[in-house]
């Protein structure tokens, strides 16, 4: 599974993307976030502000309950600020 980080999540985690292999019990976006936070201090720090980190699965916005499949592209980022 490919995970992407944007904006200050990228600077906090220190990487723009990584390949991850979470255990089988990680089946949703929210569970992936908790799993990432457990082993990545930068991500845990970003998660400390509740409700700020947003997600997309295969380039569409996704809520924490969104199911995950092998091969998904999952992105994490703060609220968007374009325009």
């Amino acid at each position, binding site marked *: 599974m490919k995970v992407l980080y944007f904006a200050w999540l990228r600077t906090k985690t220190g990487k723009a993307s990584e390949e991850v292999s979470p255990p089988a019990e990680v089946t949703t976006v929210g569970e992936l976030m908790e799993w990432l936070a457990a082993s990545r201090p930068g991500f845990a720090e970003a998660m400390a502000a509740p409700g700020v980190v947003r997600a997309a699965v295969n*380039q569409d916005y996704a809520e924490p309950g969104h199911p995950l499949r092998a091969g998904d592209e999952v992105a994490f980022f703060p609220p*968007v600020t374009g*325009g």
Partner: protein
Amino acid sequence: MVRVQEAPFDPGAELLQITRGRTDIGAVASFVGLVRDVAGDQAISAVTLEHYPGMTESKLAEIEAEANRRWPLQASLIVHRYGRMLPGEPIVLVATAAQHRAAALEACAFLIDWLKTKAPFWKLEESPGGDRWVEARSSDDEAAARW
């Protein structure tokens, strides 16, 4: 049409292109977003727009399609830049063309309001105090929600 590009663009030339060779358009509305040299009490020397290649284009296309569903548009254009840019440079252009002004004006406001809350761009401001990621504003959510 949607374009996401690093290169600067000329808003005037883009608008001329929309009506070139056409005599059926009665109204063109546009919005141009520019880099400001000030944010609150901070001087801004440059901004860098980060985006999510692929998702950016598909979200902008969805927003444009929604505008075309809601209003009888004869043409629509979204141009959004990414990368580093200086005060005074255009960041984004939204333009709509219709037979009458109400559709063009409303669709233009809709496009920029939805773009600001739904297109995956993030703004980093450079100032003498250091670099700072711009925070999302609740007023932008409210502007998008009115549509």
